[in-house]
């Protein structure tokens, strides 16, 4: 199963490398959101909850774009049928799609978080990285688990461009609240404060629950 997932992941990354569709669009949207927030807030820099809110709103919007593009190559070029006709476990498809989205999010954050620090963030970014990186990775895991599930639901619909964000946004809210609560403490004006264990735990559990839901439902979602 892992081998099959790696083959599908390799193909998805190769398609993105050749087509350059999802990641540049995600970067552009995140960059634009950041610039708009910079001017709309009318402050040279933000801290605490406002800073956390700015970061997560930016990442959430870009994530929905990534989720929307997750199955587009398969749908438009009949590739999903080709994959389903091969003896590939549906869980391998879920794992490949979730990993693709996770990689997209990490690549996005490698650019956007430094840009956020330059444009908006008041406190120094470096001291926050110890807590911020695990928080970002946990939120990315949750986004990947939810996104792979939502993408598979939306791809079967004619209104997939509308359906994916409609399903993803409310489902991602709890994960983003946990991420924002963690980041609020990290971006405090007085310096980063320790994050209570409940927030990372909630993020990990959220990713796990949606990962398991995906494993349970992918057979039905893709075969129908």
């Amino acid at each position, binding site marked *: 199963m892992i081998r*099959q997932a790696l*083959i*599908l992941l*390799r*193909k998805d990354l*190769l*398609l993105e490398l*050749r*087509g350059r569709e999802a990641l540049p669009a995600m970067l552009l949207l995140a960059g634009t959101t950041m610039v708009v927030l910079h001017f709309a807030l009318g402050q040279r820099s933000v801290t605490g909850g406002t800073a956390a809110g700015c970061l997560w709103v930016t990442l959430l919007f870009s994530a929905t774009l990534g989720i929307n593009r997750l199955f587009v*190559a398969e749908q438009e*070029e*009949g*590739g999903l*049928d*080709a*994959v389903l*006709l*091969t*003896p*590939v476990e549906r869980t391998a498809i879920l794992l490949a799609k979730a990993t693709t989205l996770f990689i997209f999010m990490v690549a996005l954050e490698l650019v956007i978080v430094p840009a956020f620090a330059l444009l908006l963030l008041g406190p120094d970014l470096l001291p926050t990285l110890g807590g911020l990186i695990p928080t970002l990775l946990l939120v990315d895991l949750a986004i990947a688990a939810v996104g792979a599930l939502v993408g598979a639901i939306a791809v079967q619909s004619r209104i997939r461009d509308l359906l994916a964000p409609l399903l993803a946004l409310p489902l991602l809210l709890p994960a983003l609240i946990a991420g924002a609560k963690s980041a609020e403490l990290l971006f405090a004006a007085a310096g980063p404060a320790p994050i209570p264990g409940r927030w990372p735990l909630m993020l990990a559990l959220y990713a796990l629950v949606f990962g398991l839901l995906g494993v349970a439902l992918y057979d039905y979602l893709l075969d129908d």
Partner: protein
Amino acid sequence: MLYRALSVRENLHHQARLLGVPSERADRLIERVGVAARADEPLRTLSRGTVQRAAAARAVLADPPLLLLDEPYANLDPGGAAMVAPLLEENRSVLISGHEPRMLLERSDVALGLRGGRRAFLKPSTDVSDSDIKALYG
């Protein structure tokens, strides 16, 4: 069922990995369908005929005992069709739907003619007459 952003070789190698087929077989099929010279160019830059040849190679990659093909010779010139047809029919049963009655009758054992979604005839291909075909398309 091929990705337009990938080359013929990348598409076939990807499918070969999924199917557990050696990539050498994919390379041999690329040679056999006559697309080796352009096998490393993205599909979106190739003609429909070349893509159709690549699709034929992909269809037989796992050497299936039965193939269901919808207009496999569409977009192919006579030379291309002559190259692809033996490959598709090699050691397997093939069910083809198409609109090239002469060529399909020459290459098949049994023919089913459909008109308005209903059976017009079902007989050995050698017994299908010109009037049978005219009745289908008339």
